[in-house]
């Protein structure tokens, strides 16, 4: 990896953009939700407040939510690329973004309770590297707030409550159950990422990976695409609404993926993402310069 300062600059800019502005497809989904809430003035009031906040943050170049969340980085690198240097540059960019106020001091030592100055610690940020066929480095960043992360759930099927057997109907029941349990506490309206199968760890990982998908895409697996639509429609009827204060905008989207599983296990993992759905991506060239912004 050559030109370390340029890498750090590009990664810093990725963090800044992610923190201060929502991706266009998410903001669009919020606007559509507002348009649909024509009859419910209270739900409209919340959504208008949320959208006003998004604009305010963009204009003033400040984090759009003060919980700047867990920093989930996902890299696709060319074969033979030095990932150690890349993670070092990323840590430096995180520390700089924290110093400049684009990230809150948001990382706590789980044993002593001390707060880290820079958000760089064991387990923070979170990295995932994969090798890709291309010549560029593809970086995606998701910032996921704690309030929404707390609303995640994992079901081991069969599961008596909510009456879920080992089939897609069982998956539907689990997801609706998780959304009902969450109420507005994950800062609804949110998006759920779901993984069918996998193990307890990979299930959560794959559920979160769904958040890399655009709001308007559909699963390529037709049965899952139908299931996503069905759950989204069912969720409007729950009446939870923005902040759990009533309305049809309980969810903005449902994204479902599947991993293979063992015959003995059938997990359904649900990850909840709040309306402050911060996701950005960038393609970086060999010297760390920005080639193209994603989303």
């Amino acid at each position, binding site marked *: 990896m050559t030109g370390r300062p340029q890498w750090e600059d590009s990664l810093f800019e990725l963090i800044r953009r992610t923190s201060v502005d929502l991706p266009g497809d998410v903001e669009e989904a919020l606007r559509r939700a507002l348009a649909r809430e024509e009859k419910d003035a209270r739900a409209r009031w919340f959504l208008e407040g949320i959208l006003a906040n998004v604009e305010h943050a963009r204009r003033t170049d400040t984090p759009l939510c003060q919980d700047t969340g867990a920093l989930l980085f996902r890299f696709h690198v060319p074969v033979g690329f030095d990932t150690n240097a890349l993670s070092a540059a990323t840590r430096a960019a995180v520390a700089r973004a924290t110093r400049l106020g684009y990230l809150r001091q948001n990382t706590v030592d789980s044993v002593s309770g001390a707060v880290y100055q820079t958000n760089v610690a064991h387990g923070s940020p979170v990295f995932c590297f994969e090798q890709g066929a291309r010549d560029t480095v593809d970086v995606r960043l998701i910032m996921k707030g704690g309030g929404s992360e707390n609303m995640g759930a994992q079901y081991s099927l069969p599961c008596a409550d909510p*009456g879920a057997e080992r089939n897609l*109907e069982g998956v539907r029941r689990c997801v609706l159950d998780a959304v009902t349990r969450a109420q*507005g506490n994950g*800062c609804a309206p949110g998006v759920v990422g779901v993984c069918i199968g996998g193990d307890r760890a990979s299930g959560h990982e794959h559920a979160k990976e769904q958040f890399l998908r655009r709001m308007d895409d559909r699963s390529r697996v037709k049965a899952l695409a139908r299931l996503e639509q069905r759950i989204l429609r069912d969720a409007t009827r729950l009446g939870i609404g923005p902040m759990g204060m009533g309305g049809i905008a309980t969810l903005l989207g449902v994204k479902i993926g599947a991993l293979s599983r063992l015959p003995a296990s059938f997990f359904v993992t649900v990850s909840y993402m709040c309306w402050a759905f911060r996701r950005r991506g960038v393609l970086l060239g060999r010297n760390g310069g920005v080639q193209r912004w994603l989303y």
Partner: protein
Amino acid sequence: MALLTPRPLQHPFTLTQIRGLRLGQLVKVSGRVYTARDRVHKYLFDGGKCPVDLEDGAIYHCGPVATRKEGGWEILAAGPTTSIREEAYAPKLIEQYGLRVILGKGGMGPRTEEACARSGCVYLQTIGGAGPMLAAHVARVHGVYFLKEFGMAEAMWELELKDFPAIVAIDAGGRSLYRRIQQASRRVLRRLIEREEPFEAVRSGDADP
């Protein structure tokens, strides 16, 4: 519709005014409030001396982001934090200090609801996550207490609000909008599970060509 026309609410709050607020009423809060999160709650609950007068006042569950500026502080973000963490402490503080307003997000439990009914206090929900926009409704920072001991987020900030947007989510009769919506949504969930057509895993057209 009157519920949805924001009603001004000015500190110090009066009992009559608070008892007159209906569930679901939109309000604009102005005047003094004090932020308090876990550390301040525990400190006061354990009998620590309160440095300010909370009578007929408001507590806001918020850990602001602030920077020093000439002659004082500027608040950059002032969004709510999850209120339910203070459920164990809140009832005692409401009654001991005569609090009239609690601001936060996500609602509180039955003990706080009862305390609201007993002593005449409301819980207001504001917009979760909307830190920067809500900071624009902080007109001034009067002061800060326990900054050294508890740190920026956990300190007790004395803020002057201006038309701070919120909604009455627990009224002074102890009625809770959260409870209503939660119960209704659970009934719908049962219906969606028990009475609706189950999702068919296979349908003609699903198979890829």
